[in-house]
C-alpha cells in the first residue's frame, strides 16, 4: 500500500498537499500567512514559467509583463468597471494568452540570447505602458484592487469567515484558496508534462531537428507553451492583485521577471517541485537576511552565486541525486 503510494506519479503532489495542510501549525501571525500566500501564488506562476523554460528550453525574461497584465486587467475590470472577479480573471487570461500568441509567433523563431533580448523587450514595453497610461492604470502610483468575490461572497484578507463551522480569518481563507490554486496549477503542469504534448515540448528542448523529423511542429509547440505559461502568469497576476488589494507597475518590472527566472534556475529547471522550492527560498531569503541590514543584498547575491556554482542543476535535482546516490551506496553495502 505504502509502496504503491510512493511509486505513484502523483507522489510529489500528495507531499505538497501534506505540507500545505501542516504548514499553518507553524504560522504565527497574519504576516506569516501573507508571506506564504504570496509564495504560493508566485510558485504557481513559476510552475507555469518552468513549462516554457525548463521543459521546452525557451527563455523568457519578460514574464512579469504577463503577470502584470493579468494583475492590471483584473484591477481595471473589477475596480474601474465593476466586473465580478471570475469573469475578469478568465477574460484577462484569454486576452493575455492572445497577446502572448501574437507576440510569440515572431519572437519564438529566435534562439538563445536573441530570444532573451526579445522577451526582455516585451516585458519592458508592458511595464512602460502600465507606467504611462495614467488614466487607466494610475501610472507609477498604482491602483487599488477590490477584494476577490464570487457570487457576492467576498474573500478579503481582512474579513472573517466560517468554513465548515470553523471560524477563520481572511488571511487564513486566502492561504487555503492559494494552496488549492497551487495544487491545481501543479497538477495541470504534471499532467501536461507526462503526455504526448509534454514529450513534444521536451523534444523541442532536447533536439529540435529530431522533433521535426518525427512530425512535431516545433513552431506550434513553442507558441503553445509560451501561451500556456503566459496564461499561468496572467491568472496568478489577477489573484495577486486581489490578494494585495493594491498594485503598482512594479508587478510587471524587469526585477520581477528576473526573480521568476532565478526561481526556476535556482530550484531546478525542468523540475516542477524544484521551482516551487526556488520560489519559497527566494521569497524567504530576504526575510531571513533582513538582520544583516545593508549587507542583505551582498549576502543574497553570495548565496545565489554559491548555490549555482555548487548546485548548477538547481536545488531539488542536486539534492535528489545526492540522496539516491547515498541510498544506492547503502544498498550496495548491504548486498
Amino acid at each position, binding site marked *: 500500500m505504502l509502496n504503491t503510494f510512493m511509486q505513484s506519479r502523483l507522489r510529489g503532489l500528495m507531499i505538497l498537499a501534506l505540507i500545505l495542510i501542516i504548514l499553518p501549525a507553524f504560522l504565527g501571525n497574519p504576516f506569516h500567512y501573507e508571506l506564504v500566500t504570496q509564495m504560493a501564488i508566485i510558485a504557481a506562476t513559476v510552475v507555469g514559467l518552468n513549462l516554457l523554460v525548463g521543459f521546452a528550453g525557451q527563455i523568457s525574461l519578460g514574464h512579469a509583463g504577463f503577470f502584470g497584465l493579468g494583475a492590471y486587467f483584473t484591477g481595471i475590470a473589477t475596480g474601474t468597471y465593476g466586473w465580478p472577479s471570475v469573469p475578469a480573471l478568465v477574460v484577462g487570461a484569454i486576452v493575455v494568452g492572445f497577446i502572448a500568441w501574437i507576440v510569440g509567433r515572431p519572437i519564438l523563431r529566435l534562439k538563445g540570447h536573441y530570444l532573451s533580448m526579445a522577451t526582455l523587450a516585451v516585458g519592458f514595453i508592458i511595464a512602460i505602458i502600465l507606467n504611462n497610461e495614467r488614466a487607466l492604470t494610475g501610472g507609477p502610483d498604482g491602483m487599488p484592487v477590490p477584494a476577490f468575490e464570487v457570487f457576492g461572497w467576498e474573500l478579503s484578507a481582512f474579513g472573517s469567515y466560517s468554513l465548515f463551522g470553523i471560524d477563520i480569518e481572511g488571511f487564513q481563507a486566502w492561504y487555503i484558496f492559494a494552496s488549492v490554486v497551487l495544487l491545481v496549477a501543479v497538477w495541470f503542469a504534471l499532467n*501536461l508534462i507526462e503526455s*504526448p504534448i509534454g514529450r*513534444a515540448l*521536451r*523534444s523541442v528542448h532536447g*533536439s529540435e531537428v529530431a*522533433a521535426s523529423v*518525427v512530425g*512535431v511542429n516545433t513552431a506550434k509547440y513553442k507558441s503553445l507553451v509560451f501561451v500556456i505559461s503566459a496564461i499561468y502568469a496572467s491568472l496568478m497576476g489577477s489573484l495577486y492583485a486581489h490578494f494585495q488589494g493594491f498594485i503598482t507597475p512594479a508587478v510587471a518590472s524587469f526585477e520581477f521577471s528576473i526573480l521568476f527566472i532565478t526561481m526556476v534556475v535556482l530550484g531546478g529547471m525542468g523540475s516542477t517541485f524544484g521551482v516551487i522550492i526556488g520560489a519559497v527560498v527566494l521569497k524567504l531569503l530576504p526575510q531571513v537576511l533582513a538582520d544583516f541590514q545593508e549587507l542583505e543584498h551582498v549576502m543574497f547575491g553570495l548565496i545565489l552565486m554559491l548555490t549555482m556554482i555548487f548546485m548548477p542543476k538547481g536545488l531539488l535535482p542536486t539534492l535528489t541525486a545526492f540522496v539516491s546516490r547515498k541510498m544506492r551506496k547503502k544498498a550496495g553495502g548491504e548486498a
Partner: protein
Amino acid sequence: MTALVEVKGLDKAFGGVHAVEGVSFSVEAGQVYSVIGPNGAGKTTLFNLITGLYTPTKGEILLNGESTAKLEPNELAERGMCRTFQQMQICMNMTAIENVMLGRHLQLKSSLFTTLFRLPSLRRNEAAARKRAAELMEYVGCGDYLDTDASAMSYGALKRLEIARALAAEPKVILLDEPAAGLNAVETAALEELIRKIADQGTTVMLVEHDMKLVMGISDRLLVLNYGRVLAEGTPEEIRQNPDVIAAYLGG
C-alpha cells in the same frame, strides 16, 4: 507504378560550392536504396534535401507524386518519411523509451483539455504507445534500456534507439544516414539483420553508408555520388563492375 521518392535535377549550392548538382533518381516502394560515395560527395546533403531540412537551389523532389518543395520536415513526417542522422539527434533530456514514444507523436493526438485533466483516453493511449515503444526497442535490440536516461546510453545503443524512434512513426520510407558509422563488426552484422527485417516488412529503406560489404549485401539499387554529381546508378552487380566507380574508389 509511380516511384515513392523521385528526385529530378536536384541542385544545392552553399555559396559557390555545389554540394549536390543535377542529381536525378527514383526509389520504388519496398526497395532498399543506398547512396554511396567518397567523403564530401554530397550524400548527407542529399538526405537533408529529401527530408526538407535544406531547401534545394534547383530541382524537385516528389514524395508519392507530391512535390515536397513547400513542406516542412514535420509535414514530410506526416506523409510517411522519417530518418536518422549521422550526427545522432537524440533528446538527451528524456529517457530511452520516451525518445521512442516521441516517434509516436503523429499517432497520439490528444486535446489540451484531455491532457490537462489526464482523461482515461489519454492514459489508455499512453499505455499502448509505451507498449509499442518497448516492443520496438526490443526489436532493434535495446530492450534492456527502457527507462534509462538517454544521456547514460552507449553510442551503439543510441544508434539503434534512433532507428526505433524512426520506426515508431510507422514511416513508408525510412532514411538511415550512416547507421553503421562507429559500430564494430558484431554490431554492424546486427544492423544488417535489422535493416533486412525492416525492408521485409515492406518499409522502403534509403541508406547512406560507407561500409561497402553492408551496402552491397542488402541494397536493391545503388546511387554513387562523386563531387555532388551522379557517377553511376544501378544494381549492386552493375555498380561493382562500373569502371567509373572503380576509378573513383581506387583512385585509378
